[in-house]
């Protein structure tokens, strides 16, 4: 049960692929969208197109309930569930909370951290803003790039599969032939794939250990080794499963799994999310000649939060807008 997509599921996948073939031939697509055969001319499942995960894994791979803010602080009570939004997001109200999730970690839902690594994860979580590479627009790494809330494109070539992600214009090549790894460790890893019947199996290595899995501080080292499995559920959905191995951080391999969905709207296009530029104020704003920073408390910058709120007895004005 822990790995709900495993050997016994191959038959199901085959059946699903057969069904998807029928679906793709029989369903009338909306105007403007090219009908795609279920298989490539080489006979593999056809993953060409624009895809996106629809889940909360980028917030936390593990099951979690919704939270009041991306960043919270202790409220009136000491309870974890009674925390309130903290300064960095308080001006954004309900738009800056965190959605709940049943989690994508298979089996018991636990991530098998070594004790010292668990302490790092906890500290990561408590220092999310300062530590998460996503906020700095660093290359997102794999598998995180696969389930960030942005679309990505898959181009299935003759002996390469290219993925282009909206986030940070990141890219990734899966070599379907043996190609030696790059001469340095990487953010996006070195991917070598092969087909096991209908499943694309990708071995990913050569990581530099600087990425996280999510905004909850889940992390890995440069010893990360992934085995990804992409299996068609239908012509428009892929079951994406990753086995994660990193003896520096985890006591055993563990697995996440989720569907990836085809973006079915006509003219589906990956529009860049050019976040290098977006992150400059975050990264370098305190080095400007004219700064938003009002004062420093140790290594913490104090910046004004600007909100337009009718004062006191004029509160009712707020509801009229």
């Amino acid at each position: 049960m822990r790995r709900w997509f495993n050997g016994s599921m191959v038959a199901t996948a085959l059946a699903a692929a057969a069904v998807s073939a029928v679906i793709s031939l029989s369903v009338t697509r909306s105007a403007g969208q090219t009908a795609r055969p279920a298989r490539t001319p080489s006979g593999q499942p056809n993953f060409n197109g624009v895809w996106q995960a629809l889940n909360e894994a980028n917030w936390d791979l593990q099951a979690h309930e919704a939270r009041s803010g991306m960043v919270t602080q202790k409220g009136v009570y000491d309870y974890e569930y009674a925390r309130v939004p903290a300064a960095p997001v308080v001006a954004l109200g309900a738009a800056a909370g965190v959605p709940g999730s049943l989690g994508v970690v298979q089996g018991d839902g636990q991530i098998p951290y070594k004790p010292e690594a668990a302490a790092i994860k906890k500290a990561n979580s408590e220092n999310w803003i300062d530590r998460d590479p996503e906020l700095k627009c660093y290359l997102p790494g794999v598998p995180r790039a696969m389930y960030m809330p942005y679309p990505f494109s898959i181009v299935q070539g003759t002996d390469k599969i290219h993925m282009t992600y909206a986030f940070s214009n990141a890219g990734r090549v899966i070599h379907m032939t043996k190609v030696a790894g790059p001469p340095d460790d990487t953010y996006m890893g070195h991917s070598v794939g092969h087909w096991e019947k209908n499943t694309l199996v990708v071995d990913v290595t050569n990581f530099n250990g600087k990425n996280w899995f999510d905004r909850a501080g889940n992390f890995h080292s440069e010893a990360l080794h992934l085995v990804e499995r992409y299996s068609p559920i239908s012509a428009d959905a892929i079951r994406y499963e990753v086995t994660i191995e990193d003896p520096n951080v985890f006591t055993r391999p563990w697995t996440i799994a989720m569907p990836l969905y085809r973006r079915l709207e006509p003219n589906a296009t990956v529009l860049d999310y050019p976040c290098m530029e977006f992150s400059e104020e975050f990264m370098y704003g305190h080095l400007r000649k004219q700064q938003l920073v009002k004062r420093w408390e140790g290594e913490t910058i104090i910046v004004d939060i600007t909100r337009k709120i009718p004062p006191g007895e004029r509160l009712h004005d707020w509801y009229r807008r």
Partner: protein
Amino acid sequence: MRRRLLEALAVASVMIALIGFLRLSVAGQAAVPQSAAKTPVPQSAAKTPAPPAAIPKTAWGQPSLEGIWLDEFDTPLERPAKYATREFFTDDERAAQNAERAGNSGRNVRAEVGSRQDVAGAYNAVFTSIKPAGRRTSLVVDPPNGRIPALTAAAQERNRIDRDFRLALLQNTDTCKNKMTACSGWQYGPPSPRLAEVPPFYNTQRMNRHNGPEDQSMADRCMSGSEPDFIGFRRIVQGPDSVAIGVDTGQGQGFQRVVYLSGNHPPSTVRLRHGDSRGHFEGNSLVVETTNYSPKWPIRGAWENLKLVERFTRLSTNTLEYSVTLTDPTVWTAPWTVKQELALQPDTENRIYYEPRCHEGNYGLPALLIGARVDEKAFAEGKGVDPASQDTASCLLNPEQQ
């Protein structure tokens, strides 16, 4: 041991680029690259399609463009006037150029050791690739004189306004006092009040002021990579309904493109760093039209009305012809076209560095801003020189060095 060595090599994206460039230089000097060793293609062949039988096809019948491609030659964008409308060098002319390039011309130029100029000009020719001469006298093939067409009056005026602002910021420095090339057309004078102004247009080049990231060049901000790119490696992965192009343009500033073979450009309100590319096949060529460029990433001043039409044509197993026509009637008085022959690179050697990560290691940008704040503070406290009198933008080179 391998790891430690490699980590050392990865200290800066500059080094990564250097490794790539050096490999090219070595290839270029030790032996003429494979494609150059062949009998030069007759000039008339440039307009004659190669025999279709020689062209690899994809499983779905399109001409295959797949592989890592590189222009193995160093060709000036615009043609020197002395070659007039002549598109190709003779073999003797190429041999003479390669003999010169194989020497150490320009590589020992150094300002007075330890001087400000010496440190600021740390990039000598060792850091730049020296590729052999190609058969073309210029990358621009149309207009027939190999020159980019004249700018429109509006574009010239825009350039003048932009240049005047940059020179005003430089006017109190030694660069202007000593009449160096970077100050040509301007006079030495007191610190300009324009130092307090917002630049007249969205800035994309380095200027002599460092108030924030927007005062830096796009390269300083790790955002300079854009098409058309004439120098980088590019990896093409081709699918039946879209084509991915990963460009490694050096300095960790590569980028990814997806060319969709269906659909339409987004509304003109959507502006994109790499534009929006839609392609289709015409015979053996993939023809790609790109529009929707952003004002933040102009190409020689063009963006709003810029249209690129690129043609990727597989000429043979090892050769891909690339041409691009740039059209923007508000910037250029005529369209212009660049043509290159790209050579297939071995995949097994990882010829391409497909992970552009300048931004992840960008210590230079914050250091530049910190330096500017420190200088301002010191001057305010009466301990330093006026930052306005310091040239921190040009390369401080004397005219004969440029």
